[in-house]
């Protein structure tokens, strides 16, 4: 069942972080391989010919692409350790709905915040906060989205925290001021080793964004 497990990844990718967290939560050993996205490895191109993107999880030589699919795969194969996805079909549907929401909104809006200026940026910030507030509503009084333990939605969302500082600096706003419950939830997650060791330092991510901004010429 364990076999050989390789994760092709890129350190600031929130999508890669999802799989890192899932594997760490379940205590599954794997080989982490850093990809240079300007010079993708033959292995990456071979394992993900359709999208040529990271993360790619390679299990016994067979690739699983797309972070949400990887997390579900990891949960299904190693189902007896730290289950992430609820067992009740309706709860699963609710969790999948919110992960889909996160995928549709958070990354794109966050990107707009650091890439754009003026009105476009202002609109992105507003919508971003609205989305976080909706997620706060879903969290309610629970410790985690998954209840008492880390779940699928937690794993899908918490990686974006490593980009919050960059969003805040670029957008000149405070996420904690607008969404304190969200930040409180983040801090609870960060107390878990699986999360803390899977997320890069926020300052490093910010420096990375500044480099990207130079390349994209938006400074």
């Amino acid at each position, binding site marked *: 069942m364990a076999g050989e497990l390789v994760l092709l990844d890129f350190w600031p990718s929130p999508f890669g972080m999802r799989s890192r967290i899932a594997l760490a939560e379940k205590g599954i050993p794997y080989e982490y391989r850093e990809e240079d996205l300007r010079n993708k490895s033959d292995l990456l191109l071979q394992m993900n010919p359709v999208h040529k993107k990271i993360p790619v999880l390679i299990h016994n030589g067979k690739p*699983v692409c797309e972070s949400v*699919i990887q997390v579900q795969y990891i949960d299904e194969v190693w189902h007896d350790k730290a289950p992430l996805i609820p067992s009740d*079909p309706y709860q699963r549907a609710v969790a999948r709905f919110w992960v*889909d929401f996160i995928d549709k909104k958070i990354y794109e809006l966050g990107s707009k915040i650091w890439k754009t200026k003026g009105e476009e940026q202002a609109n992105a910030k507003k919508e971003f906060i609205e989305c976080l507030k909706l997620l706060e509503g879903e969290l309610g009084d629970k410790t985690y989205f998954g209840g008492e333990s880390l779940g699928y939605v937690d794993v899908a969302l918490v990686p974006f925290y490593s980009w919050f500082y960059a969003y805040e600096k670029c957008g000149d706003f405070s996420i904690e001021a607008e969404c304190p419950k969200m930040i409180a939830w983040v801090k609870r997650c960060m107390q878990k080793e699986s999360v803390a060791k899977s997320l890069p330092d926020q300052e490093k991510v910010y420096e990375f964004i500044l480099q990207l901004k130079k390349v994209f010429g938006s400074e």
Partner: protein
Amino acid sequence: MGEEVKLHGMWASPFSRRVELALKLKAIPYQYIEEDLSNKTPSLLRYNPVHKKVPVLVHNDKPVAESMVIIEYMDETWENNPFLPRDPYERAMARFYAKFIDDKLLPTLAKLGQTAGKEKEETIEEIHEQLKVLEDELKGKQFFGGQRIGYLDIVAMILVWLHLTGSITGQKVLSTEKFPLIHEWIERVMKMEVVNECLIPEEKRQDWIQLSQRAPKSASN
């Protein structure tokens, strides 16, 4: 058994039709509510406050939104005629190609109606590359799901729509020469009564083409 299943849908939405097909494949009796997207019912807004879109499945008054979330929910709740394979790796593959269709193919197809000239040619090129991925996935199989219609076949119904509307618009993006396996698959699924019941009726196809050219992804998911 006390099961009450309702579907809030819209005749022109491929996402809505997809869920109808899934319901029919599992022979689940349901009540269908046609939504007027310019005048959504209060029920729809209550059941899907986040996106306010169709389709929404309501099972014993509990709403499920987003077509792929609905389909997986159905597969886990009604175990007859399973859509997804049992093996985790095969499930991952089915989900991957379904996501590919939704995230890549559908948006490119939506773009097609709004481009002209060189941009249109490039878009068609892109569609051909994407269709090739699906053509390859059919190699050695009767259906995307293998021997039986499954999860990916349900999502791939967009190919049937593409074929049918292509004959109307004259835009043969899905050529038989380039995509013989897809054509064989289309012929095979169109022999199924449930598939035909979920296609857009012939008299409405022209309307659908105009609608999809105007508003690619405005109100359904």
